[in-house]
């Protein structure tokens, strides 16, 4: 069952995959691959094709065109081998509400072909990882939404799969649980590959090593988080003075590309990517006794990048 194919370094390979529902094209020619130890954040507006892509990787939907390989096994031709390496949490956690947590997790473990001896240990471990230790005897129907979500995550990691796919795993969790789950995901990412889709952008920045943005079924961004952080680094300063300032005086400072006055005595100062004129501005303010009230670097965040990529067409707002 283990890697017959040792040259494979990527755990997931998605090659030119498209999916049509009637005339509607939900996923359009998407290709990417994922290596061991990577955590891939999958972003996109509602209806962009995130869930469809994830379902296809897990073999719940067959792609119209293209191929998907898990550890070198084609998901359609060798589904059993490929699925043995997969843990999947769909957008609605697949829970049998009339079972207790223990019964449910044992059933999942058996479905994934764990041996009788390994089932108890893996169920205990799964419960520990997801903070369900005291919930074993509770009926799933009586658990809160957050705990149900945790049972769903426990189900996906129970059999120690090499690829874990989580569709919006932190929906319905409280802030403490979200932190715990993020930590769990980072921990999982050390030995496994994780794909997670989410609407919460900071979550991606904190837990993922790679980011993909999908829009209208097309992959519009596929970059590592480090490259993205560079793109997000500051290139403007927000400055506010107490007394009125001659704008030409500021313009004469080095490294400054543009200055706009945003309100009374408040300026947005654009500068080069790798230069920071904050010090010179501060010195100027002191020398000229301008009364510096504010000096803040402005950072581009995930949100701006996300919006600029997904709202390319005119939008009336």
């Amino acid at each position, binding site marked *: 069952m283990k890697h017959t194919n040792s040259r494979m370094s990527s755990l997931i390979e998605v090659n030119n995959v498209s999916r049509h529902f*009637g005339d509607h094209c939900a996923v359009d020619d998407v290709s990417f691959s994922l290596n061991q130890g990577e955590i891939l954040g999958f972003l996109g507006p509602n209806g962009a094709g995130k869930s469809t892509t994830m379902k296809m990787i897990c073999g*719940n939907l067959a792609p119209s065109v293209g191929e998907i390989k898990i550890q070198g096994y084609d998901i359609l031709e060798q589904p059993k*081998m490929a699925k043995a390496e997969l843990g999947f949490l769909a957008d609605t956690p697949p829970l049998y*509400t009339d079972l207790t947590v223990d019964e449910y997790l044992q059933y999942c473990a058996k479905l994934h072909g764990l041996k009788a001896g390994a089932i108890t240990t893996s169920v205990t471990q799964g419960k520990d990882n997801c903070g369900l230790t005291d919930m074993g005897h509770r009926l799933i129907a009586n658990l809160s939404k957050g705990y149900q979500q945790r049972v769903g995550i426990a189900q996906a990691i129970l059999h120690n799969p090499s690829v874990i796919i989580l569709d919006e795993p932190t929906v319905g969790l409280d802030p403490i649980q979200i932190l715990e789950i993020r930590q769990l995901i980072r921990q999982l990412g050390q030995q496994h590959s994780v794909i997670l889709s989410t609407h919460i952008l900071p979550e991606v920045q904190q837990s993922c090593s790679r980011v993909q943005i999908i829009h209208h079924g097309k992959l519009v961004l596929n970059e590592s988080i480090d490259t993205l952080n560079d793109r997000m680094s500051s290139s403007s300063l927000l400055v506010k003075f107490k007394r009125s300032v001659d704008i030409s005086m500021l313009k004469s400072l080095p490294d400054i590309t543009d200055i706009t006055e945003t309100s009374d005595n408040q300026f947005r100062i654009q500068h080069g990517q790798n230069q920071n004129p904050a010090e010179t501005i501060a010195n100027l303010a002191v020398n000229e006794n301008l009364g510096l009230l504010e000096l803040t670097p402005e950072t581009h965040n995930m949100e701006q990048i996300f919006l600029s990529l997904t709202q390319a067409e005119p939008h009336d707002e």
Partner: protein
Amino acid sequence: MNSLTIAGRELRSLFLSPLAWTMLGISQLILAYMFLTQIDFYLTIQPKLVELANAPGITDLVIAPLYGNAAVIFLLITPLITMRLISDERRNKTISLLFSAPISMTDIILGKFLATFIFLLIMLFSITLMPLSLIPIATIDFGKLTACLLAMMLLLAAFDALGLYMSAIASQATVAAVCSFGALLLLWIIDWAGSNSGNASPLFEYISMMRHFESLLRGLVHSTDVLYFILFIAGFLVLSVRRLDNDRLQK
């Protein structure tokens, strides 16, 4: 192995709901009443039977009719048991758990089929306790009783397979129940057309489930009848697997 896991979970859920217990209780009650009236009837005609040479025994007059009645009751309740098998999994999205696990579609269908079949066998067993209770006071033809049980098992498996298929194509459990009940009833009575005038279609006669069932119930174990049921069961199981497989290809 995988199908046994699925069957175990399915049976457990079945017995966790009041539905299974209610069905066991109510069907037992009704059949016990029918059994009693059948015995009563037997006791009134018994003096006349003594005068006949080669008279039918208690197996023909009490036990076979009991199973005949049971068949009609099963016709009514099997759709209620099978209706949730696939359609509820789809509705509750739990089907994604099965689709992402390393098991085949055949495992899923066989597991579901086995679970309901075992439940139906439990019902059949509790019904069979009634004829067995006659052992101390009457001589029972065990050959015929075995034929009756074989007939029941084949019939129940056939009901089960058809119900499972209906559950696989319907999006709602109730729709599956109505469809499988309609289909079963139609198959039950399809040979009625022309049967009075004596020129019934041989095709309809072959399709009719009741015809095959009744000849088995009379103790005539004919390979044609057994084969009919086996083909029927296998046919609907294969169709169910295909239908489930189609979920992934949905347009």
